[in-house]
């Protein structure tokens, strides 16, 4: 087993990408993820990679577009406002079926917001922040170790389905330090072949990569191809964690950092004689609707907790329908809810439904 | 005696006239007929053999519709 190292989340995310065979990073400084950009500026040259600090996030996403066209594994990392600037480029990459990994270390918003951890970008991430019919695969880590695994998974999914993939972390995951293990370095010659890349029309017809066609019927064909890919992803790539489900008094739906806080809340609740189940989506898109729907038939309440005004809540409601009540508790502006305040909410919900 | 001649792809030509404007020997004119796009294409017309195969027409053509040929000099006394 590889030995454990104490490492900052931002740097772990960068090292994970390198272990996944990524050798190209284009980025722009933005709190709370700048350490990731700094790390890549030091680390990539050590492994023969290319680091470039661009002039804006708009340029960054287009550099990713270009590098991805050449068939290499490429990534960037940014935070909410920077990620918003990348939306047009991401829509182009989705339409051109170009793989790449975007790490979004979410911070308080909207607008300039602040630099605290938050989850206010869920809808942008999972419903498509740019124009046109497309979705990103969105992965929501709750610990640094899981973030490492999900970054590596992100590169594999991006290549397999030829799509941009977003790792939706937050300022907490980026800034905290934890002991973690890194998997072995993947050798570059095991990376998937990309015959579609623009490596030069040598011994083949020219490759053309574009999201463009003026003929609506051809563009519809392209869209039907993207849709078929989305269906495959929905069928094969849903991931979640469920814990303490059997006989739970209440089921909590939470992801990322709040999903982690819930582990403490569940223990504290047990001491107060309340059995709290946890449903933690890991793929935020494709959202695990079916499983949550099944679980919601066995409980009275599916309680959604987020660091936002209620965004994953919408997907929870889609899954739960009227099988159970779907109350919500959230903190906005980058405020991180404490286990105690969440537990108080749970107590009142559970007591509320008991003495009816 | 003409030093060469040109062939004009009538379908590619859009009748812009830049070749005629550039031709020093004025041996290109608009054809009376139409191509399928409805343009009067350019037409090589060199009854007196003035074409010097300079290629100015080729250089100015925005649609690369012209191919320029140059007669090979046959050695006078061979």
């Amino acid at each position, binding site marked *: 087993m590889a030995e454990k190292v104490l490492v900052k989340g931002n740097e772990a995310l960068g090292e994970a990408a390198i272990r996944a065979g990524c050798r*190209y990073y*284009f980025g722009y400084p933005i709190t709370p993820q700048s350490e990731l950009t700094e790390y890549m500026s030091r680390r990539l040259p050590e492994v023969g990679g290319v680091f*470039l600090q*661009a*002039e804006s996030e*708009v*340029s*960054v996403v*287009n*550099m*990713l*577009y*270009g*590098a991805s*066209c*050449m068939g*290499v594994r*490429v990534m960037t990392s940014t935070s909410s406002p920077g990620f918003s600037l990348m939306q*047009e480029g991401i829509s*182009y990459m989705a339409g*051109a079926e170009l793989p790449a990994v975007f790490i979004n270390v979410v911070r308080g918003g909207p607008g300039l917001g602040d630099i605290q951890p938050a989850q206010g970008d869920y809808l942008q991430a999972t419903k498509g922040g740019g124009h046109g019919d497309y979705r990103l695969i969105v992965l929501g880590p709750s610990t640094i170790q899981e973030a490492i695994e999900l970054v590596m998974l992100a590169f594999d999914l991006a290549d397999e389905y030829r799509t941009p993939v977003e790792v939706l972390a937050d300022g907490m995951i980026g800034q905290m330090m934890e002991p973690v293990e890194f998997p072995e370095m993947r050798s570059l010659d095991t990376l998937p072949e990309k015959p579609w890349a*623009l*490596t*030069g*029309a*040598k*011994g083949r017809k*020219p*490759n*053309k*990569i*574009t*999201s*463009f066609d003026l003929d609506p019927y051809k563009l519809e064909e392209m869209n039907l191809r993207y849709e078929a890919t989305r269906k495959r992803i929905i069928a094969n790539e849903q991931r979640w964690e469920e814990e303490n489900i059997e006989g739970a008094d209440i089921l909590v739906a939470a992801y990322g950092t709040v999903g982690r806080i819930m582990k403490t809340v569940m223990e504290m609740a047990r001491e107060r004689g309340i059995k709290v189940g946890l449903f933690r989506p890991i793929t935020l898109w494709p959202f695990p609707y079916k499983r949550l729907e099944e679980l919601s038939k066995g409980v009275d309440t599916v309680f959604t907790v987020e660091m936002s005004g209620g965004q994953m809540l919408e997907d929870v409601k889609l899954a739960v329908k009227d099988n159970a009540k779907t109350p919500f508790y959230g903190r906005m502006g980058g405020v991180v809810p404490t286990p105690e305040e969440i537990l108080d909410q749970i107590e009142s919900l559970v007591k509320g439904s008991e003495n009816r | 005696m003409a030093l*060469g*001649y040109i062939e004009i792809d009538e379908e*590619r030509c859009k009748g*812009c*006239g*830049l070749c005629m*404007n*550039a031709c020093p020997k004025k041996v290109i004119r608009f054809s009376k007929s139409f191509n399928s796009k409805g*343009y009067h294409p350019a037409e090589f017309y060199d009854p007196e053999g003035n074409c010097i*195969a*300079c*290629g100015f027409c*080729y*250089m*100015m*053509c*925005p*649609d*690369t519709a*012209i*191919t*320029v*040929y*140059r*007669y*090979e000099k046959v050695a006078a006394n061979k």
Partner: protein
Amino acid sequence: MNAKVVMKRPDSLSKIDFTYCPGCHHGIVHRLIAEVIDELGIREKTVIVAPVGCSVFAYTFFEIDGTVASHGRAPAVATGMKRARPDRIIFTYQGDGDLAAIGTTEIVHAANRGENITVIFINNAVYGMTGGQMAPTTLIGQRTTTTIHGRDPKAAGYPIRICEMLSQLEGPTYIERVAVDTPQHVMKAKKAIKKAFENQINGLGFSLIEVLSTCPTNWGLPPVEAIKWLQENMMKFYPLGVYKDKTREEAKEGIV
């Protein structure tokens, strides 16, 4: 007497008809690029990054790998490509709306990094594809669909001289402005384009060729008169010439 072909359609042009208006200079520049690619023997390792604009279809007009960048971002796309595969020849083909308006940031920083790419910049003083609106390079007093009384600098600022602007930067290696209004200028333009590609092949850094071009349809002039207008107006405000040539400076100092 038999005759041999002396000038024909270059191999690096695809079979697809150009979608440009009659007399549009885009087509001439496309041919020059294709001739240069043929002569340098680089068709099989060259990639075009087309812009959004009339030349958005350019990626299909060349028998090479190609893509379309979002409006103004071609220099960033090309940067990503070149950093990923430095041994490929990457060039962007951009209009004045694309490069000098929305894409100013990308072109300035690609030039400033001395990115080893080739940029072909078509300046026809209007947004062609969208129907003839004012562009950053629209001349003072020039009528467009968004300056119907003529461009007034108090309201819409001044035309931007890209070659002069970019040549202030340390990064670029070669910047020249050319035109394709006459056969003589076409030959000079080809020389400039060829040098711009050779610079990239030799790893000498960023080259940009600005080509003054007509837009008969949106200028409201027949093709031949459009050329006259270009000569009498655009060439005065945008003088042709080499604005930067590090290869010659360095040659003098014996570096190259």
